[in-house]
Protein backbone atom coordinates (compact mmCIF):
# COMPACT_ATOMS: atom_id res chain seq x y z
CA UNK A 1 0.00 0.00 0.00
CA UNK A 2 1.32 3.39 -0.93
CA UNK A 3 1.60 6.16 1.57
CA UNK A 4 -0.92 8.92 1.11
CA UNK A 5 1.72 11.59 0.50
CA UNK A 6 3.64 9.41 -1.99
CA UNK A 7 0.38 8.57 -3.68
CA UNK A 8 -0.56 12.22 -4.06
CA UNK A 9 2.87 13.18 -5.43
CA UNK A 10 2.91 10.25 -7.85
CA UNK A 11 -0.61 10.92 -9.10
CA UNK A 12 0.14 14.62 -9.49
CA UNK A 13 3.16 13.80 -11.63
CA UNK A 14 1.10 11.43 -13.79
CA UNK A 15 -1.70 14.01 -14.10
CA UNK A 16 0.66 16.81 -15.12
CA UNK A 17 2.53 14.54 -17.53
CA UNK A 18 -0.68 13.28 -19.19
CA UNK A 19 -1.94 16.84 -19.45
CA UNK A 20 1.34 18.16 -20.85
CA UNK A 21 1.56 15.36 -23.41
CA UNK A 22 -2.01 16.00 -24.55
CA UNK A 23 -1.43 19.74 -24.89
CA UNK A 24 1.97 19.34 -26.54
CA UNK A 25 0.72 16.81 -29.06
CA UNK A 26 -2.34 18.96 -29.78
CA UNK A 27 -0.12 21.99 -30.38
CA UNK A 28 2.17 20.09 -32.69
CA UNK A 29 -0.80 18.49 -34.45
CA UNK A 30 -1.55 21.92 -35.86
CA UNK A 31 1.96 22.02 -37.27
CA UNK A 32 1.70 18.46 -38.62
CA UNK A 33 -1.68 19.28 -40.12
CA UNK A 34 -0.31 22.28 -41.99
CA UNK A 35 2.79 20.46 -43.18
CA UNK A 36 0.76 17.42 -44.18
CA UNK A 37 -1.77 19.43 -46.17
CA UNK A 38 1.13 21.27 -47.79
CA UNK A 39 2.62 17.97 -48.93
CA UNK A 40 -0.71 16.81 -50.30
CA UNK A 41 -1.25 20.09 -52.13
CA UNK A 42 2.31 20.37 -53.39
CA UNK A 43 3.13 23.43 -51.26
CA UNK A 44 5.86 24.13 -48.74
CA UNK A 45 3.75 24.82 -45.67
CA UNK A 46 4.93 26.87 -42.67
CA UNK A 47 8.72 27.29 -42.86
CA UNK A 48 9.49 30.72 -41.41
CA UNK A 49 9.38 30.26 -37.63
CA UNK A 50 12.36 28.12 -36.68
CA UNK A 51 13.78 25.17 -38.62
CA UNK A 52 11.04 23.55 -40.75
CA UNK A 53 8.60 25.99 -39.17
CA UNK A 54 8.79 24.04 -35.91
CA UNK A 55 8.13 27.11 -33.79
CA UNK A 56 4.93 27.85 -35.69
CA UNK A 57 2.57 26.50 -32.93
CA UNK A 58 4.30 28.82 -30.46
CA UNK A 59 3.90 31.78 -32.79
CA UNK A 60 0.23 30.88 -33.32
CA UNK A 61 -0.31 30.68 -29.58
CA UNK A 62 1.27 34.07 -28.99
CA UNK A 63 -0.81 35.52 -31.81
CA UNK A 64 -4.00 34.10 -30.28
CA UNK A 65 -3.24 35.59 -26.88
CA UNK A 66 -2.25 38.97 -28.28
CA UNK A 67 -5.37 39.46 -30.37
CA UNK A 68 -8.12 41.74 -29.17
CA UNK A 69 -10.81 39.99 -27.21
CA UNK A 70 -14.31 40.88 -28.28
CA UNK A 71 -17.37 39.93 -26.29
CA UNK A 72 -20.63 40.88 -28.02
CA UNK A 73 -22.48 43.20 -25.65
CA UNK A 74 -25.91 41.64 -26.22
CA UNK A 75 -24.66 38.18 -25.28
CA UNK A 76 -24.56 36.60 -21.86
CA UNK A 77 -21.00 37.22 -20.79
CA UNK A 78 -20.67 34.38 -18.30
CA UNK A 79 -22.06 31.73 -20.64
CA UNK A 80 -20.04 33.17 -23.51
CA UNK A 81 -16.83 32.47 -21.58
CA UNK A 82 -18.15 29.18 -20.21
CA UNK A 83 -18.60 27.68 -23.71
CA UNK A 84 -14.93 27.40 -24.79
CA UNK A 85 -13.88 26.58 -21.22
CA UNK A 86 -16.23 23.59 -21.16
CA UNK A 87 -15.03 22.46 -24.59
CA UNK A 88 -11.44 22.54 -23.33
CA UNK A 89 -12.28 20.91 -19.99
CA UNK A 90 -14.09 17.93 -21.48
CA UNK A 91 -11.38 17.48 -24.09
CA UNK A 92 -8.74 17.23 -21.36
CA UNK A 93 -10.85 15.05 -19.04
CA UNK A 94 -10.99 12.08 -21.42
CA UNK A 95 -7.23 11.66 -21.24
CA UNK A 96 -7.45 10.59 -17.59
CA UNK A 97 -8.31 6.96 -18.26
CA UNK A 98 -5.74 6.12 -20.92
CA UNK A 99 -2.93 3.86 -19.70
CA UNK A 100 0.24 5.05 -21.37
CA UNK A 101 2.50 2.11 -20.69
CA UNK A 102 3.13 -1.00 -18.65
CA UNK A 103 3.30 -0.65 -14.90
CA UNK A 104 6.65 0.54 -13.66
CA UNK A 105 7.80 -1.40 -10.59
CA UNK A 106 10.06 0.54 -8.25
CA UNK A 107 12.92 -0.96 -6.25
CA UNK A 108 10.74 -1.42 -3.16
CA UNK A 109 8.18 -3.43 -5.12
CA UNK A 110 5.40 -0.89 -5.49
CA UNK A 111 3.90 -0.73 -8.96
CA UNK A 112 3.32 2.63 -10.52
CA UNK A 113 0.75 2.63 -13.34
CA UNK A 114 1.31 5.14 -16.12
CA UNK A 115 -2.33 6.14 -15.97
CA UNK A 116 -4.15 8.85 -14.06
CA UNK A 117 -6.86 6.50 -12.87
CA UNK A 118 -8.13 3.06 -13.76
CA UNK A 119 -11.86 3.10 -13.11
CA UNK A 120 -13.76 -0.09 -13.72
CA UNK A 121 -16.33 1.77 -15.80
CA UNK A 122 -13.69 3.24 -18.16
CA UNK A 123 -15.76 3.19 -21.31
CA UNK A 124 -18.86 4.61 -19.67
CA UNK A 125 -16.74 7.44 -18.27
CA UNK A 126 -15.56 8.12 -21.81
CA UNK A 127 -19.14 8.31 -23.06
CA UNK A 128 -20.17 10.48 -20.13
CA UNK A 129 -17.45 13.01 -20.87
CA UNK A 130 -18.14 12.95 -24.61
CA UNK A 131 -21.83 13.58 -24.02
CA UNK A 132 -20.98 16.52 -21.74
CA UNK A 133 -18.76 17.89 -24.51
CA UNK A 134 -21.88 18.87 -26.43
CA UNK A 135 -22.60 21.56 -23.84
CA UNK A 136 -19.45 23.51 -24.63
CA UNK A 137 -20.57 23.96 -28.22
CA UNK A 138 -24.26 24.52 -27.45
CA UNK A 139 -23.69 27.08 -24.72
CA UNK A 140 -21.11 28.90 -26.81
CA UNK A 141 -23.37 29.00 -29.85
CA UNK A 142 -26.38 30.18 -27.91
CA UNK A 143 -24.58 32.78 -25.82
CA UNK A 144 -23.17 34.41 -28.95
CA UNK A 145 -26.68 35.70 -29.72
CA UNK A 146 -26.13 35.18 -33.41
CA UNK A 147 -28.35 33.13 -35.70
CA UNK A 148 -25.45 31.55 -37.57
CA UNK A 149 -23.76 30.57 -34.33
CA UNK A 150 -26.97 29.03 -33.04
CA UNK A 151 -27.50 27.10 -36.27
CA UNK A 152 -23.90 25.88 -36.18
CA UNK A 153 -24.24 24.84 -32.54
CA UNK A 154 -27.45 22.94 -33.22
CA UNK A 155 -25.89 21.20 -36.19
CA UNK A 156 -22.82 20.28 -34.19
CA UNK A 157 -24.75 18.93 -31.25
CA UNK A 158 -27.28 16.98 -33.31
CA UNK A 159 -24.38 15.43 -35.19
CA UNK A 160 -22.60 14.51 -31.98
CA UNK A 161 -25.72 13.05 -30.38
CA UNK A 162 -26.52 10.98 -33.49
CA UNK A 163 -23.06 9.49 -33.79
CA UNK A 164 -22.75 8.82 -30.06
CA UNK A 165 -25.40 6.10 -30.43
CA UNK A 166 -23.57 4.22 -33.18
CA UNK A 167 -20.33 4.67 -31.24
CA UNK A 168 -21.83 3.15 -28.11
CA UNK A 169 -23.33 0.24 -30.02
CA UNK A 170 -20.05 -0.53 -31.79
CA UNK A 171 -18.28 -0.59 -28.44
CA UNK A 172 -20.85 -2.99 -26.94
CA UNK A 173 -19.67 -5.75 -29.29
CA UNK A 174 -16.09 -5.12 -28.19
CA UNK A 175 -17.07 -5.23 -24.53
CA UNK A 176 -18.83 -8.55 -25.18
CA UNK A 177 -15.59 -10.08 -26.44
CA UNK A 178 -13.30 -8.55 -23.81
CA UNK A 179 -15.68 -8.84 -20.89
CA UNK A 180 -14.41 -5.66 -19.27
CA UNK A 181 -15.04 -1.93 -19.33
CA UNK A 182 -11.65 -1.04 -17.90
CA UNK A 183 -9.14 0.33 -20.39
CA UNK A 184 -6.16 -1.20 -18.65
CA UNK A 185 -7.68 -4.65 -18.68
CA UNK A 186 -8.63 -4.41 -22.36
CA UNK A 187 -5.08 -3.35 -23.22
CA UNK A 188 -3.50 -6.04 -21.07
CA UNK A 189 -5.63 -8.74 -22.70
CA UNK A 190 -3.95 -7.96 -26.01
CA UNK A 191 -0.38 -8.52 -24.82
CA UNK A 192 -0.31 -11.98 -26.40
CA UNK A 193 -2.05 -13.13 -29.55
CA UNK A 194 -4.09 -11.00 -31.87
CA UNK A 195 -5.20 -7.46 -31.19
CA UNK A 196 -8.89 -6.63 -30.88
CA UNK A 197 -9.03 -5.28 -34.42
CA UNK A 198 -8.79 -8.85 -35.72
CA UNK A 199 -11.89 -9.82 -33.74
CA UNK A 200 -13.88 -6.64 -34.33
CA UNK A 201 -12.98 -5.18 -37.76
CA UNK A 202 -16.49 -3.87 -38.41
CA UNK A 203 -16.73 -2.46 -34.90
CA UNK A 204 -13.44 -0.67 -35.44
CA UNK A 205 -14.63 0.83 -38.71
CA UNK A 206 -17.85 2.13 -37.14
CA UNK A 207 -15.99 3.45 -34.11
CA UNK A 208 -13.48 5.20 -36.34
CA UNK A 209 -16.17 6.90 -38.45
CA UNK A 210 -17.98 7.97 -35.28
CA UNK A 211 -14.73 9.30 -33.83
CA UNK A 212 -14.34 11.46 -36.94
CA UNK A 213 -17.88 12.75 -36.48
CA UNK A 214 -17.49 13.31 -32.72
CA UNK A 215 -14.37 15.40 -33.16
CA UNK A 216 -16.04 17.43 -35.93
CA UNK A 217 -13.28 16.55 -38.34
CA UNK A 218 -13.70 16.44 -42.10
CA UNK A 219 -15.65 14.92 -43.80
CA UNK A 220 -17.96 15.65 -40.85
CA UNK A 221 -16.97 19.29 -40.30
CA UNK A 222 -20.44 20.62 -41.07
CA UNK A 223 -20.62 22.70 -37.88
CA UNK A 224 -17.92 24.96 -39.33
CA UNK A 225 -19.24 24.93 -42.87
CA UNK A 226 -18.14 28.42 -43.94
CA UNK A 227 -20.19 28.57 -47.10
CA UNK A 228 -23.47 27.93 -45.32
CA UNK A 229 -22.90 29.17 -41.77
CA UNK A 230 -20.30 31.96 -42.02
CA UNK A 231 -18.14 30.22 -39.43
CA UNK A 232 -20.30 27.89 -37.38
CA UNK A 233 -20.70 28.01 -33.61
CA UNK A 234 -17.55 30.06 -33.09
CA UNK A 235 -18.43 32.90 -35.45
CA UNK A 236 -18.49 35.48 -32.65
CA UNK A 237 -15.38 34.24 -30.91
CA UNK A 238 -12.01 35.86 -31.18
CA UNK A 239 -8.62 35.67 -29.56
CA UNK A 240 -7.81 32.74 -27.27
CA UNK A 241 -11.46 31.79 -26.79
CA UNK A 242 -11.55 30.84 -30.46
CA UNK A 243 -8.19 29.23 -29.89
CA UNK A 244 -9.70 27.08 -27.12
CA UNK A 245 -12.38 25.74 -29.45
CA UNK A 246 -9.85 24.94 -32.15
CA UNK A 247 -7.41 23.51 -29.64
CA UNK A 248 -10.09 21.35 -28.04
CA UNK A 249 -10.68 19.77 -31.44
CA UNK A 250 -7.03 18.78 -31.67
CA UNK A 251 -7.00 17.41 -28.13
CA UNK A 252 -10.13 15.40 -28.93
CA UNK A 253 -8.44 14.07 -32.02
CA UNK A 254 -5.41 13.05 -29.97
CA UNK A 255 -7.51 11.34 -27.31
CA UNK A 256 -9.69 9.49 -29.79
CA UNK A 257 -6.56 8.35 -31.63
CA UNK A 258 -5.24 7.09 -28.31
CA UNK A 259 -8.48 5.23 -27.63
CA UNK A 260 -8.51 3.69 -31.11
CA UNK A 261 -4.85 2.71 -30.97
CA UNK A 262 -5.19 1.33 -27.46
CA UNK A 263 -8.48 -0.51 -27.62
CA UNK A 264 -8.29 -1.92 -31.13
CA UNK A 265 -4.56 -2.03 -31.81
CA UNK A 266 -3.10 -3.10 -28.51
CA UNK A 267 -1.70 0.21 -27.25
CA UNK A 268 1.67 -0.42 -25.65
CA UNK A 269 1.75 -4.06 -26.80
CA UNK A 270 3.35 -5.00 -30.08
CA UNK A 271 3.87 -8.29 -31.98
CA UNK A 272 6.55 -10.54 -30.49
CA UNK A 273 6.95 -8.16 -27.57
CA UNK A 274 7.84 -10.97 -25.15
CA UNK A 275 10.57 -12.35 -27.41
CA UNK A 276 11.92 -8.84 -27.99
CA UNK A 277 12.12 -8.07 -24.28
CA UNK A 278 13.79 -11.43 -23.61
CA UNK A 279 16.46 -11.06 -26.28
CA UNK A 280 17.26 -7.52 -25.18
CA UNK A 281 17.32 -8.60 -21.55
CA UNK A 282 14.73 -6.10 -20.37
CA UNK A 283 13.18 -7.18 -17.09
CA UNK A 284 9.44 -7.19 -16.49
CA UNK A 285 8.39 -3.95 -14.80
CA UNK A 286 11.60 -2.04 -15.48
CA UNK A 287 11.57 1.61 -16.45
CA UNK A 288 12.95 0.81 -19.89
CA UNK A 289 10.07 -1.54 -20.59
CA UNK A 290 7.56 1.16 -19.65
CA UNK A 291 9.40 3.61 -21.88
CA UNK A 292 9.44 1.27 -24.89
CA UNK A 293 5.74 0.53 -24.38
CA UNK A 294 5.00 4.23 -24.20
CA UNK A 295 6.95 4.94 -27.39
CA UNK A 296 5.19 2.14 -29.26
CA UNK A 297 1.80 3.44 -28.12
CA UNK A 298 2.78 6.97 -29.04
CA UNK A 299 3.82 5.94 -32.55
CA UNK A 300 0.45 4.23 -33.06
CA UNK A 301 -1.32 7.37 -31.87
CA UNK A 302 0.68 9.55 -34.26
CA UNK A 303 -0.23 7.11 -37.04
CA UNK A 304 -3.91 7.58 -36.28
CA UNK A 305 -3.55 11.36 -36.15
CA UNK A 306 -1.95 11.25 -39.59
CA UNK A 307 -4.83 9.07 -40.80
CA UNK A 308 -7.32 11.65 -39.49
CA UNK A 309 -5.46 14.36 -41.40
CA UNK A 310 -5.14 12.31 -44.55
CA UNK A 311 -8.92 11.84 -44.56
CA UNK A 312 -9.49 15.54 -43.96
CA UNK A 313 -7.40 16.61 -46.93
CA UNK A 314 -8.73 13.91 -49.25
CA UNK A 315 -12.50 13.68 -48.85
CA UNK A 316 -15.08 16.39 -49.52
CA UNK A 317 -17.60 17.39 -46.86
CA UNK A 318 -20.90 15.55 -46.45
CA UNK A 319 -24.22 17.21 -47.08
CA UNK A 320 -26.34 17.46 -43.95
CA UNK A 321 -28.98 14.89 -45.02
CA UNK A 322 -26.22 12.49 -46.12
CA UNK A 323 -24.65 12.85 -42.69
CA UNK A 324 -27.87 11.98 -40.88
CA UNK A 325 -28.60 9.18 -43.36
CA UNK A 326 -25.19 7.63 -42.75
CA UNK A 327 -25.47 7.92 -38.99
CA UNK A 328 -29.00 6.69 -38.41
CA UNK A 329 -29.78 4.40 -41.34
CA UNK A 330 -26.40 2.80 -42.02
CA UNK A 331 -24.10 2.88 -39.00
CA UNK A 332 -26.69 2.05 -36.33
CA UNK A 333 -28.14 -1.01 -38.14
CA UNK A 334 -24.60 -2.12 -39.00
CA UNK A 335 -23.48 -1.90 -35.40
CA UNK A 336 -26.57 -3.79 -34.23
CA UNK A 337 -25.75 -6.46 -36.82
CA UNK A 338 -22.21 -6.50 -35.45
CA UNK A 339 -23.54 -7.13 -31.94
CA UNK A 340 -25.79 -9.97 -33.17
CA UNK A 341 -22.99 -11.64 -35.15
CA UNK A 342 -20.59 -11.31 -32.23
CA UNK A 343 -23.18 -12.83 -29.92
CA UNK A 344 -23.82 -15.76 -32.28
CA UNK A 345 -20.11 -16.47 -32.69
CA UNK A 346 -19.48 -16.26 -28.96
CA UNK A 347 -22.39 -18.50 -28.06
CA UNK A 348 -22.08 -20.88 -31.00
CA UNK A 349 -21.46 -23.93 -28.80
CA UNK A 350 -24.57 -23.24 -26.74
CA UNK A 351 -26.67 -22.72 -29.87
CA UNK A 352 -25.45 -26.00 -31.36
CA UNK A 353 -26.12 -27.78 -28.08
CA UNK A 354 -29.66 -26.38 -28.10
CA UNK A 355 -30.54 -28.13 -31.36
CA UNK A 356 -28.86 -31.46 -30.58
Amino acid sequence: MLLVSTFIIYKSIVCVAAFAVALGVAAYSTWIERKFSAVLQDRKGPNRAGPFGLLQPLADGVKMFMKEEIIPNVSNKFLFILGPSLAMLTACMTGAIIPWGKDFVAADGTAYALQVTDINIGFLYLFGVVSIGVYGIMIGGWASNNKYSLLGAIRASSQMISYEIAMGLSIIALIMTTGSLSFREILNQQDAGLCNFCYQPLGFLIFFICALAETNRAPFDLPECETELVGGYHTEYSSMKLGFYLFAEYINMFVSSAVLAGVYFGGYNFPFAKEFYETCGIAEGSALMSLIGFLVYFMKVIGFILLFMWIRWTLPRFRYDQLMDLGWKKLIPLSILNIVVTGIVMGWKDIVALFN
Partner: protein
Amino acid sequence: MLLNIPLTQYLFYFLSFVALLCGLMVVFSKNPVHSVLYLVLTFFAIAGHYILLNAQFLAIVHIVVYAGAIMVLFLFVIMLLNLNHDSEPHKNMLLKGAAVLAGGLLLMVLTGSLKGAETLAMHQPLNTQVGLIKNLGTVLFKDFLFPFEISSILLLGAMVGAVMIGKKEIK
Protein backbone atom coordinates in the same frame (compact mmCIF):
# COMPACT_ATOMS: atom_id res chain seq x y z
CA MET B 1 -8.53 3.41 2.59
CA LEU B 2 -6.98 6.55 1.25
CA LEU B 3 -9.89 8.77 2.09
CA ASN B 4 -10.72 8.97 5.76
CA ILE B 5 -14.28 9.47 6.83
CA PRO B 6 -14.38 13.21 7.61
CA LEU B 7 -13.40 14.08 4.03
CA THR B 8 -16.29 12.11 2.54
CA GLN B 9 -18.58 13.82 5.01
CA TYR B 10 -17.37 17.21 3.85
CA LEU B 11 -17.96 16.08 0.29
CA PHE B 12 -21.47 14.96 1.21
CA TYR B 13 -22.33 18.35 2.69
CA PHE B 14 -20.76 20.21 -0.20
CA LEU B 15 -22.64 18.13 -2.80
CA SER B 16 -25.90 18.47 -0.90
CA PHE B 17 -25.42 22.23 -0.75
CA VAL B 18 -24.72 22.40 -4.49
CA ALA B 19 -27.68 20.15 -5.30
CA LEU B 20 -30.11 22.17 -3.17
CA LEU B 21 -28.84 25.54 -4.35
CA CYS B 22 -28.98 24.58 -8.02
CA GLY B 23 -32.37 22.97 -7.52
CA LEU B 24 -33.67 26.25 -6.12
CA MET B 25 -32.04 28.20 -8.93
CA VAL B 26 -33.84 26.00 -11.49
CA VAL B 27 -37.12 27.33 -10.11
CA PHE B 28 -36.08 30.91 -9.46
CA SER B 29 -34.06 31.85 -12.54
CA LYS B 30 -36.00 33.89 -15.11
CA ASN B 31 -34.28 32.60 -18.21
CA PRO B 32 -35.31 29.04 -19.20
CA VAL B 33 -31.85 28.28 -20.60
CA HIS B 34 -30.33 29.15 -17.22
CA SER B 35 -32.86 26.86 -15.55
CA VAL B 36 -31.79 23.98 -17.76
CA LEU B 37 -28.11 24.62 -17.02
CA TYR B 38 -28.79 24.71 -13.27
CA LEU B 39 -30.69 21.44 -13.61
CA VAL B 40 -27.62 19.92 -15.28
CA LEU B 41 -25.51 21.07 -12.32
CA THR B 42 -28.04 19.48 -9.97
CA PHE B 43 -27.67 16.20 -11.83
CA PHE B 44 -23.92 16.41 -11.46
CA ALA B 45 -24.22 16.93 -7.72
CA ILE B 46 -26.54 13.92 -7.47
CA ALA B 47 -24.10 11.85 -9.53
CA GLY B 48 -21.45 12.86 -6.99
CA HIS B 49 -23.69 11.47 -4.24
CA TYR B 50 -23.94 8.17 -6.12
CA ILE B 51 -20.14 7.99 -6.31
CA LEU B 52 -19.97 8.60 -2.56
CA LEU B 53 -22.28 5.59 -2.18
CA ASN B 54 -19.85 3.57 -4.37
CA ALA B 55 -22.47 3.24 -7.10
CA GLN B 56 -20.19 4.16 -10.00
CA PHE B 57 -22.35 2.65 -12.70
CA LEU B 58 -25.46 4.50 -11.56
CA ALA B 59 -23.49 7.76 -11.33
CA ILE B 60 -22.09 7.58 -14.83
CA VAL B 61 -25.34 6.38 -16.39
CA HIS B 62 -27.10 9.21 -14.61
CA ILE B 63 -24.71 11.65 -16.29
CA VAL B 64 -24.86 10.00 -19.71
CA VAL B 65 -28.64 9.69 -19.80
CA TYR B 66 -29.83 12.78 -17.95
CA ALA B 67 -27.09 15.39 -18.40
CA GLY B 68 -25.80 14.08 -21.70
CA ALA B 69 -28.98 13.17 -23.56
CA ILE B 70 -32.22 14.38 -22.01
CA MET B 71 -31.05 17.84 -20.94
CA VAL B 72 -29.35 18.40 -24.30
CA LEU B 73 -32.71 17.76 -25.96
CA PHE B 74 -34.39 20.16 -23.51
CA LEU B 75 -31.78 22.77 -24.34
CA PHE B 76 -32.37 22.13 -28.02
CA VAL B 77 -36.08 22.76 -27.75
CA ILE B 78 -35.70 25.86 -25.59
CA MET B 79 -33.03 27.36 -27.82
CA LEU B 80 -35.00 26.69 -30.99
CA LEU B 81 -38.28 28.01 -29.62
CA ASN B 82 -36.35 31.00 -28.28
CA LEU B 83 -38.50 31.24 -25.16
CA ASN B 84 -37.83 34.52 -23.46
CA HIS B 85 -39.32 36.46 -20.65
CA ASP B 86 -41.99 38.29 -22.64
CA SER B 87 -43.50 35.34 -24.46
CA GLU B 88 -43.85 33.20 -21.35
CA PRO B 89 -47.56 32.70 -20.64
CA HIS B 90 -48.79 34.21 -17.42
CA LYS B 91 -49.95 31.57 -14.96
CA ASN B 92 -52.89 32.36 -12.73
CA MET B 93 -52.84 32.25 -8.95
CA LEU B 94 -55.02 29.14 -8.70
CA LEU B 95 -52.50 27.12 -10.71
CA LYS B 96 -49.61 28.40 -8.60
CA GLY B 97 -51.46 27.52 -5.40
CA ALA B 98 -52.24 24.03 -6.67
CA ALA B 99 -48.60 23.52 -7.60
CA VAL B 100 -47.40 24.58 -4.15
CA LEU B 101 -49.95 22.29 -2.50
CA ALA B 102 -48.96 19.30 -4.66
CA GLY B 103 -45.25 19.90 -4.06
CA GLY B 104 -45.81 20.24 -0.31
CA LEU B 105 -47.77 17.00 -0.21
CA LEU B 106 -45.00 15.20 -2.07
CA LEU B 107 -42.47 16.54 0.40
CA MET B 108 -44.65 15.32 3.29
CA VAL B 109 -44.91 11.82 1.82
CA LEU B 110 -41.16 11.67 1.23
CA THR B 111 -40.36 12.84 4.74
CA GLY B 112 -42.85 10.36 6.18
CA SER B 113 -41.41 7.45 4.23
CA LEU B 114 -37.81 8.31 5.09
CA LYS B 115 -38.53 8.83 8.78
CA GLY B 116 -37.78 5.26 9.74
CA ALA B 117 -34.86 4.87 7.33
CA GLU B 118 -32.08 5.17 9.93
CA THR B 119 -33.31 2.17 11.89
CA LEU B 120 -33.89 0.22 8.67
CA ALA B 121 -30.24 0.56 7.63
CA MET B 122 -29.14 -0.99 10.92
CA HIS B 123 -30.94 -4.27 10.25
CA GLN B 124 -29.25 -4.97 6.91
CA PRO B 125 -25.50 -5.55 6.73
CA LEU B 126 -23.97 -2.93 4.43
CA ASN B 127 -22.42 -4.30 1.25
CA THR B 128 -20.24 -1.61 -0.29
CA GLN B 129 -19.62 -3.60 -3.48
CA VAL B 130 -23.25 -3.82 -4.51
CA GLY B 131 -23.13 -0.77 -6.79
CA LEU B 132 -20.20 -1.91 -8.88
CA ILE B 133 -20.99 -2.85 -12.45
CA LYS B 134 -20.11 -6.54 -12.13
CA ASN B 135 -22.47 -7.15 -9.22
CA LEU B 136 -25.17 -5.03 -10.78
CA GLY B 137 -24.95 -6.99 -14.03
CA THR B 138 -25.13 -10.31 -12.21
CA VAL B 139 -28.21 -9.21 -10.28
CA LEU B 140 -29.95 -7.81 -13.37
CA PHE B 141 -29.28 -10.79 -15.62
CA LYS B 142 -29.76 -13.56 -13.04
CA ASP B 143 -32.22 -12.59 -10.32
CA PHE B 144 -34.25 -9.94 -12.12
CA LEU B 145 -33.96 -11.08 -15.74
CA PHE B 146 -37.69 -11.15 -16.41
CA PRO B 147 -38.55 -7.64 -15.14
CA PHE B 148 -35.44 -6.35 -16.87
CA GLU B 149 -36.52 -7.78 -20.23
CA ILE B 150 -40.08 -6.55 -19.74
CA SER B 151 -38.87 -3.01 -19.14
CA SER B 152 -36.63 -3.18 -22.20
CA ILE B 153 -39.62 -4.22 -24.33
CA LEU B 154 -41.55 -1.32 -22.82
CA LEU B 155 -38.77 1.06 -23.87
CA LEU B 156 -38.70 -0.47 -27.35
CA GLY B 157 -42.45 0.08 -27.63
CA ALA B 158 -42.05 3.69 -26.54
CA MET B 159 -39.32 4.18 -29.13
CA VAL B 160 -41.45 2.76 -31.95
CA GLY B 161 -44.28 5.00 -30.80
CA ALA B 162 -42.04 8.06 -30.87
CA VAL B 163 -40.93 7.23 -34.41
CA MET B 164 -44.58 6.83 -35.47
CA ILE B 165 -45.54 10.19 -33.97
CA GLY B 166 -42.48 11.79 -35.51
CA LYS B 167 -43.41 10.67 -39.01
CA LYS B 168 -45.05 13.38 -41.09
CA GLU B 169 -47.74 11.15 -42.58
CA ILE B 170 -48.50 7.52 -42.07
CA LYS B 171 -49.13 5.66 -45.25
